[in-house]
């Protein structure tokens, strides 16, 4: 589907002097009002809204693309867990082997490298990505892909503030955001390689994971104002600036995928189609995710986030396309970490304010 035949809308002159924060707020409020879980009608409506706003911002070649997936990450986690639990009825080396294979498969799924088990499972639906382009003046020498997903997550007990806070503390110690697949993965490794006691503990963890996943899958879709209406608002603002002030030789792709909260499945589908058209040497990805933070003002958080950004700063460049890592474990979160760290004053290799250089 294409809406490229739509001509750019002339903006109200008043909006040109409107403060940036007012525009961001307006976009976030509009998007938060749409219930937009991955692969649902709401996600399609939010894609329509983003497309219209991209057009208003002055972007061209607005296109929708489809991906096929489940509406939640819970499906793949439950499937892997049930596979391991079922195999344990057989016992012996077969159950250990299946647990090992399931662990490798789940890790590949969580990092976006392979969705093979998802592909076998029924219940997939069609989701919607939307993209727009700002052609380079004088022909493209470089490309930037600005990414902000427009779908919203669902709630669940696993997102209890205490659970999230435990993850935050772990991230502060290690500099790495823990994956929601971490515990089930460890359980599968324990079942594959551990003694009988560890295997029993692993089985119990998988059982609990299944219950929590099912509960989460049937929970409400959240408004997603920060995660990630703020990112989309930032994407629109960047589109507005880059359309008005094109940078010589820079082609801009403004991409708002769906399906991020289902495991990065929307952008995985987009890259499947577009990867061959992107040169890693001349392409930069910039991810905007949850940019309206409210809890990173402490010195402790600032220092830790800065450390995270320094370790991950190289992940913001396009060569990671070549590595094929698409999910939370790859560049999906890394650019956001850099932007967050700058927002709270930490240093990175990127400038932390307009006009600033390294």
């Amino acid at each position: 589907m294409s809406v490229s035949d739509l001509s750019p809308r002339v903006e109200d002159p008043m909006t040109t002097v409107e403060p940036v924060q007012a525009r961001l707020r307006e976009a976030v409020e509009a998007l938060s009002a749409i219930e937009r879980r991955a692969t649902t009608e709401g996600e399609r409506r939010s894609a329509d809204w983003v497309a219209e706003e991209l057009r208003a911002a002055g972007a061209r070649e607005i296109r929708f693309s489809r991906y096929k997936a489940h509406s939640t990450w819970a499906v793949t986690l439950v499937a892997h867990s049930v596979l391991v639990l079922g195999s344990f009825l057989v016992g012996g080396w077969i159950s250990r082997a299946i647990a090992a294979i399931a662990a490798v498969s789940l890790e590949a799924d969580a990092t976006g490298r392979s969705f093979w088990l998802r592909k076998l499972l029924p219940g997939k639906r069609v989701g919607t990505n939307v993209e727009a382009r700002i052609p380079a003046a004088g022909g493209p020498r470089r490309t930037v892909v600005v990414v902000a997903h427009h779908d919203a997550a669902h709630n669940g007990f696993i997102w209890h503030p205490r659970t999230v806070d435990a993850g935050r503390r772990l991230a502060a110690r290690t500099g790495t955001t823990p994956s929601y697949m971490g515990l089930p993965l460890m359980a599968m490794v324990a079942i594959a390689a551990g003694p009988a006691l560890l295997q029993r503990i692993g089985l119990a963890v998988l059982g609990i994971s299944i219950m929590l996943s099912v509960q989460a899958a049937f929970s409400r879709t959240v408004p997603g104002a920060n995660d990630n209406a703020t990112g989309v608002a930032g994407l629109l603002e960047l589109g507005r600036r880059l359309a008005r002030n094109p940078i010589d030789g820079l082609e801009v792709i403004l991409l708002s995928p769906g399906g991020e909260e289902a495991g990065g499945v929307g952008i995985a589908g987009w890259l499947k189609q577009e990867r061959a058209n992107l040169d890693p040497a001349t392409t930069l990805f910039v991810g905007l995710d949850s940019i309206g933070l409210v809890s990173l003002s402490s010195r402790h958080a600032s220092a830790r986030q800065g450390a995270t950004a320094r370790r991950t700063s190289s992940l913001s460049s396009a060569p990671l396309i070549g590595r094929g890592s698409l999910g939370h474990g790859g560049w999906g979160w890394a650019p956001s970490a850099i932007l967050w760290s700058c927002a709270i004053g930490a240093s990175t290799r990127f400038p932390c304010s307009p006009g600033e250089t390294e």
Partner: protein
Amino acid sequence: MIANLHRTSDVPGNVDWASAERVTDLAYAAIKQWARS
């Protein structure tokens, strides 16, 4: 980690607009630097 992460309390009233603006400005600066480097 993010306040209100995947909670029904992730509403516009809990967004830090100054943070959102600053990150947007940073992204714009990073893009300009990338284009000119």
